[in-house]
């Protein structure tokens, strides 16, 4: 079985969010970059677990990004995986463009299973997995909280409004992963050492038309400030929530 895990690079969860160049670009000065948590903790770790259970599993990672994505993909390789492919482009603003690059890699790789994260914590799209699935004409199960495989059948629990649903599907399939699918891991020394020698291939992007563009960014208006209420006057809090905030 061949698995492909989509890995993206995102700012650290504590990064200060600011913009530059007339609010058209993210201010990346001093920002620490990490593997998107959903990709690392859930998608990648689950794929590694599947490989640990069945040594014949071949695990590839793909990232679409410039040379600055190399440390991220190396870190992912240190967690596990056989080799990585980087599609060399810095055009990352349009999800369809990025998804088309991943689909191209997938078409040439003959994968039985493609994992993505639930969403990137910077763009919050939740869209690339579905795009890849459509471009490959494969089923797509999103927001998975459990993933099991038996022969060529995948059993996937996915989140639905107010609950969960268990789906069965025959491979190949694209699945987006979230909490529940696996538990985060820390790379060990052996992994870090062996990652240095694992193949990391850079390929050039295919030509694709971008469908969207980001015209500007903005920060939310600052909060007016907190109104403190005495713990001895909870009736006042309820009155304010009712009469001033009008939320109860």
């Amino acid at each position, binding site marked *: 079985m061949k698995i492909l895990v989509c890995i993206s690079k995102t700012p650290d969860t504590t990064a200060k969010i600011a913009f530059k160049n007339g609010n058209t670009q993210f201010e990346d000065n001093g920002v620490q970059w990490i593997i998107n948590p959903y990709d690392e903790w859930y998608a990648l770790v689950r794929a590694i677990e599947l490989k640990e259970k069945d040594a014949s599993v071949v695990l590839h990672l793909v990232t679409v990004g410039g040379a600055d994505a190399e440390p991220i993909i190396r870190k992912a390789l240190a967690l596990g995986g056989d080799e990585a492919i980087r599609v060399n482009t810095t055009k990352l603003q349009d999800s369809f463009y990025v998804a088309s690059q991943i689909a191209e890699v997938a078409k040439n790789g003959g994968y039985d299973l493609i994992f993505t994260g639930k969403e990137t914590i910077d763009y919050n799209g939740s869209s690339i997995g579905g795009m890849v699935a459509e471009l490959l004409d494969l*089923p797509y199960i999103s927001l998975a909280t459990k993933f099991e495989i038996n022969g060529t059948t995948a059993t996937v629990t996915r989140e639905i409004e107010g609950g969960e649903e268990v789906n069965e599907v025959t491979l190949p399939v694209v699945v987006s992963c979230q909490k529940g699918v696996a538990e985060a891991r820390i790379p060990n020394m052996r992994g870090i050492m062996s990652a240095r020698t694992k193949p990391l291939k850079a390929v050039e992007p295919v030509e694709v038309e971008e469908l969207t563009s980001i015209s500007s960014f*903005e920060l*939310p208006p600052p909060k007016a400030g907190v109104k403190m209420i005495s*713990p001895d006057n909870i009736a006042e809090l309820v009155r304010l929530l009712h009469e001033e905030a009008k939320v109860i």
Partner: protein
Amino acid sequence: MVLILADQTDGHFKKTAFEALSYGAKVAEQSGTSAEALVLGSVNEDVASLGKYGVTKVHHVSNDALNIFDAQVYTKVIAAAVQSTEAKVLVLSHNNTGRAIAGRLSARLKAAMVPAAVGLPDTADGFVVKKVVFSGKAFANVSLNTDIKIISLNMNAHKILAGEGTAQVSELNVPVDVSKIKVTATNKVTGEIPLTEATRVVSGGRGLKGPENWKIVEDLAHSLDAALACSRPVADAGWRPHHEHVGQTGIAIAPNLYVAAGISGAIQHLAGVNRSKVIVVINKDSEAPFFKAADYGVVGDVFEILPKLTEEVKKLKGA
């Protein structure tokens, strides 16, 4: 024409469907065109009554096969509906269904799509829609540069506007593929308000000390008709189910009221709740970072404050 998917589950429209319809009707009004709804599968509600949210027509693909959700099958049907109705804008809810199909539809129709949209399109120069980015810490204005446009509307981002009116309902005949997915089980939390649909949420953190103390959180939630949530360590420790975990790596919510009890307000927690309209923080530490993001704050012990608050809410409701 603006086509809106009125998403349903078990034959009932979701609350997010009414938000999407109200939003779509506004989009149509802005550009001087009509708004129409698309309903898939069998429903137990009066479909014509969707007219009160501003749609003039409802296209219903009543095929039973659509009672099972398969993103691939849904995508083909919706794309065919967009083409046969010649819709120029498609509106979906960015709920679990929307997240499964918005990307697929964009790829299938080669149509620009904006996920997690929070504003009406600005058409002064092109077609620009504001969306959430950086997990609620900022917004991006996304320009949709194709003829057909898809908007996946974030939850609680648009008010439900109900008026008078009935829509004209017609059956839409589009082919429905056989699903490759078999649904073998469905587990719904019954009797509780789903977190993502809730207008009020009461959330507990490590300050509650243990799962045995959750009764006071639940009591407050019941008194407010609120859903329950928790911080990540609480879910990780197994005190509460995973689906209640909110934050950067959990669920992102935007209710009208978020009550945080015994939660410190770490940046990753805030990322999931900072779009709540009103935030109430109860923490015994006056230096807790959450107070900076709050609208109302009480410095005090949750074990004292929560029961008092529940009592006062009940008094108000009883009045």
